[in-house]
């Protein structure tokens, strides 16, 4: 009879879903490093004759059932929202995106913008009061995603404009409260600070036409002033368009779609070159030397 694993073992298992592990696989074209981490957890997963592709998914299933850490929630959002409701060719996903003085766990950009702040059963709600005001100024829809047992509690404590989703047992996201959509609360200055230089230049020039060449020390101030003068609706459209472009290019779509569903969110958030992506996919398909 298999005894249930200890929390420390699940924490160890969750280590295979980190950027550093993905980067190592991409560097070595081998998943040995992940297998070592998996074996260190002491959790039994049938590995024989199976490529890493399959045991990553199996590991996520185990975490989903026994230890719902933040990665489980992120993977569910990628799977259910980007690959389920939408498509990676039209919806972009960003992980750990700075918003004002906070960092939102997951943001999805399709025709609009949605922020997902994850509160697992291991998290406190301490920072929510400072996080949500920032998110409400930057996203048309804001959700807290939590454990089903905590959904009621979050319904009571978060701003009523913030929606609440709970992650059900099989990875479904159940809506306990719909997020209030309101484009008028968007603060263009907040959006500007989330954009990269080439993105805000492109956005502003779409509205105001070509701008004079400026010394690089003055560029941000000049474009920031113009962007701040846009209506919330226009600024938001430009913002969403820029954010969508970050991951909806053909190469990225093909890459994340080739990953097992358990690794897609990590694929979105780990910057890898074309060669590294190829090596990663190769490493995930080949049986490891340790197995």
């Amino acid at each position: 009879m298999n005894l249930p694993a200890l929390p420390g073992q699940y924490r160890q298992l969750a280590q295979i879903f980190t950027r550093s592990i993905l980067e190592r696989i991409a560097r070595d074209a081998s998943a040995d490093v992940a297998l070592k981490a998996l074996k260190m957890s002491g959790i039994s997963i049938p590995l024989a004759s199976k490529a890493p592709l399959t045991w990553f998914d199996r590991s996520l299933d185990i975490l989903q059932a026994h230890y719902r850490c933040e990665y489980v929630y992120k993977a569910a959002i990628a799977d259910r929202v980007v690959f389920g409701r939408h498509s990676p060719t039209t919806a972009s996903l960003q992980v750990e995106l700075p918003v004002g003085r906070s960092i939102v766990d997951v943001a999805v950009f399709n025709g609009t913008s949605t922020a997902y702040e994850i509160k697992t059963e291991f998290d406190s709600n301490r920072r929510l009061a400072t996080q949500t005001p920032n998110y409400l100024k930057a996203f048309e829809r804001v959700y807290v995603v939590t454990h089903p047992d905590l959904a009621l509690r979050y319904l009571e404590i978060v701003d009523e404009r913030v929606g609440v989703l709970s992650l059900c047992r099989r990875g479904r996201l159940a809506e306990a409260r719909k997020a209030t959509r309101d484009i008028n609360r968007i603060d263009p200055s907040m959006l500007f600070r989330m954009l990269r230089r080439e993105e805000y230049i492109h956005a502003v020039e779409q509205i105001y036409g070509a701008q004079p060449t400026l010394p690089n020390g003055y560029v941000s101030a000049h474009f920031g002033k113009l962007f701040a003068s846009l209506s919330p609706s226009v600024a938001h459209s430009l913002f969403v368009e820029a954010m969508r472009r970050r991951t909806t290019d053909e190469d990225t779509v093909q890459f994340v779609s080739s990953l097992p569903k358990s690794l897609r969110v990590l694929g979105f958030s780990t910057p890898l070159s074309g060669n590294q992506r190829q090596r990663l996919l190769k490493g995930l398909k080949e049986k490891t030397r340790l197995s």
Partner: protein
Amino acid sequence: MYFPYMYGRRSELLAVRAMLSAGRNLEPLIPVIEPVNLDISDLSRCLALCEEAGQRIAIVTNPNLHQLRQTSQQWQNGVKALLEAYPTAIPTLKCSPHTTATNVSAFFRSMAARDVAITHAGSALDQADFTTMVRHPTVRFHIALANMVPSTQLTAIPRNKRVVVTDPFSRQARNADYDGMEFFSDAYKNFARANIGFGDFMCIGSNFQPGGGAPAAVVIHAVFKARNSGDIWIEHFLSDDVERDQGDTPNKFLQAARKLVQAVRHRPREFGSNPALTAYAAHVQNGHFPQLGKNKELQMVHHMCLMLDVLSGAL
């Protein structure tokens, strides 16, 4: 003589290269480089230019930080070839608690035909071996990292070869925490009574830290000679925006640089004049952000120039 101690990252090596055309007598300057990166291409270029200029530069041949924490044969071979190609470079052994008498002998043997240096970082050699090492005739400089060397070892080093490197830079956890000015050092005034030279870690600090991401605040650390005491102080010029969600890095750099340029304009006899200060003024004038690596480089160039200026009496 002045021995700025650095870690061989690109901005530091570029600062050394910039000194070659800083319009100063570089005889009293010996940069000490303890490399931390596996890639030696920047080091190679720097050594080639130092060789052309006849500039002495000490290179630690057994570094153990960052990418060189594990011994790399490829790195060792590359540096060996550089030292053979550039005789003005001074091969330097870092003598730390792990260094054995065998290591020291092997170093002396491999560098038999040239002047070398020893960096003292807390040797665990017994007294006899330590004495043999410090009396070795090919050692041109014994560079002691203050606070890492017992006083008995320090006094055993011959005065005419002893350099004491201190770390007066008070590093803060965040750039935003730097504030105003503080005393840095008066070593240039009195080192000659006991030693042949002095050194410091400039505005890098002795506690090596790899670079990070975009900073919440930009700061420029600039040393100056206090008019009343003649001591060296350091002033921290901090951007007005000090939060991650405020402004952008180019603008933060200009905010900090404007404050430095204004201070230099008001107190020219404290900061002196040098190519780094001229570059800062030009960046402010042109609204140009030269990137953070260049900002670091300019701070180090100013630091080295000012130390040379106080040593020569020009400031």
